[in-house]
């Protein structure tokens, strides 16, 4: 572990947003490749942020700050990683808030945690029709669909996702994880979703389990 990586980790954890890009550049200059910076630096930083969140040392404002700091670094190294071809990222996730709901803060935090894991995260935003989610998962050969909702009428959309995945022969190949205020483990089991998580830290663990990483 280089001193530059340690410094980058600290910057992301403490949310020194303006220092993230220069610190990432320093890591590159010191000879670290993009993959090392992501997996040995940024991922570790987000794991620490996740631990702080779980232990209530951090709340959403601090996590948002760290997430935005993370993206400053990722903006520099992700293009380099993509140039290296397949196999450099550990999996693809299509993430969104289902149709009928616009509450997307939780989804954005899950996105940051999954991005921090080094996954290719495709964000469809909010209020997304189920057919668009499935189409994107197909097109991008996603291993995971992550759906969120805070509202109750939109729970139906999650049920519909399970149904369409089955019809399309995607069950098992593309795993569905769900979360958000209106969901629960019981609901996930009842509709046949592959996973449920209470918050972004758990979501990151569920995704790692699905991908075997």
């Amino acid at each position: 572990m280089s001193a530059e990586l340690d410094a980058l980790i600290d910057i992301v954890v403490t949310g020194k947003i303006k220092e993230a890009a220069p610190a990432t550049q320093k890591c590159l200059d010191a000879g670290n490749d993009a993959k090392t910076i992501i997996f040995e630096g940024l991922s570790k930083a987000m794991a620490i942020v996740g631990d702080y969140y779980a232990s209530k040392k951090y709340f959403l404002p601090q996590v948002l700050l760290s997430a935005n700091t993370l993206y400053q670094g990722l903006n520099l190294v992700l293009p380099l990683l993509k140039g290296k071809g397949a196999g450099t990222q550990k999996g693809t996730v299509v993430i969104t808030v289902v149709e009928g709901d616009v509450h997307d803060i939780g989804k954005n935090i899950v996105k940051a945690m999954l991005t921090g894991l080094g996954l290719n995260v495709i964000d469809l935003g909010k209020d997304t029709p189920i057919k668009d989610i499935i189409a994107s998962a197909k097109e991008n050969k996603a291993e995971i669909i992550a759906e969120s909702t805070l509202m109750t009428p939109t729970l139906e959309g999650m049920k519909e996702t399970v149904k369409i995945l089955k019809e399309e022969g995607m069950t098992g190949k593309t795993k569905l994880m769900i979360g958000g205020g209106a969901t629960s483990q019981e609901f996930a089991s009842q509709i046949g979703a592959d996973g449920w998580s209470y918050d972004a830290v758990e979501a990151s663990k569920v995704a790692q389990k699905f991908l075997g990483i």
Partner: protein
Amino acid sequence: MAMTPRERVLAAMRKEQLDRPPVAVFTQSATIGQMEALNVFWPEAHSNPQMMAKLGSGQADVLGFEAVRASFCLTAEAERLGCVVDPGKKDRTPMIKKHPFKFDPMVGEYDEPALMDPEEFLKGGRPATVIEAVKLMKEQRGKDYAVIAGNTGPFTLAGHMVSTENLVFGIMMAPEEVTKWLKAVAPICKGYTQALADAGADIIQMSEPSASTDLLSPDMFDEFAGGYCKDSLATVKGAYSVLHICGNTTPILNNMVATGVTGLSIEEKVDPKEGVRIVKKRAALIGNIGVVNPLLQGTPEDCYKHGKIVKEAGFDVVAPGCGLSALISNENLLALVKAVKE
């Protein structure tokens, strides 16, 4: 002589010892069961005072709860101030589709909070509809039932204007810009609270979901939410004040009490006994039956059981912990009412 539901609810606001607590919905109360029984539906009832008054009385008329309440959403103020709102459907509350102001902590660009005058705010749009509905409810049902009027808290409303995520992120990046927005919306919230009381509401229940510990850290509560709730809700004249915050409010119950409101409306994520222990009768406690579980997804037996638990824990009003999902069945709500009344 037996107490009327009105007397019971108002006595509960004063934290009087009662033979049993009242059971009432202090948050969004309409369900499809009530809409069908009364032949009044969403989305029309959001913008028609007669329909709003009728459906808002449904919790009492159809299900036997002990209060009446308007309105059914947290978008009336935001829409009046320029947000684009999707009116929703029969089973879905309206939602905000577009925030009218730019507030971007990442690039450091912030619109000035150019909002309408608080007096002007009350004269049109759905806030005027709600005020009219409250007048009708007071006239029609006020003898027997306490009339509850719901509105939106300053931090939540400011979030509607500029995007809640940006506002929360702004606390970390440019707190003075956040404060500027809170100071701009607070007089509007305060004016609306008083107008609802003047229209005849006995209780103003302000929802401030964005001040939940899911969004704000507890040490930020006083500065960015509590102080403004104190000013725009607790100071109301001629009505009781109830502050509703979602999520696990255990770490901020003392801060909520410190706003000086009459009552706190809280969710099931707070353990009922612990909530009662922390609040220690410094405010009336209202809640905290889970809306998703047991009310939406549980059985009538589950709802009955939870009703008993909250009643025995010592809540001043047994109530759903958050706004009802329109999809909750009559059977489940009737079981809750029965658990408290018997």
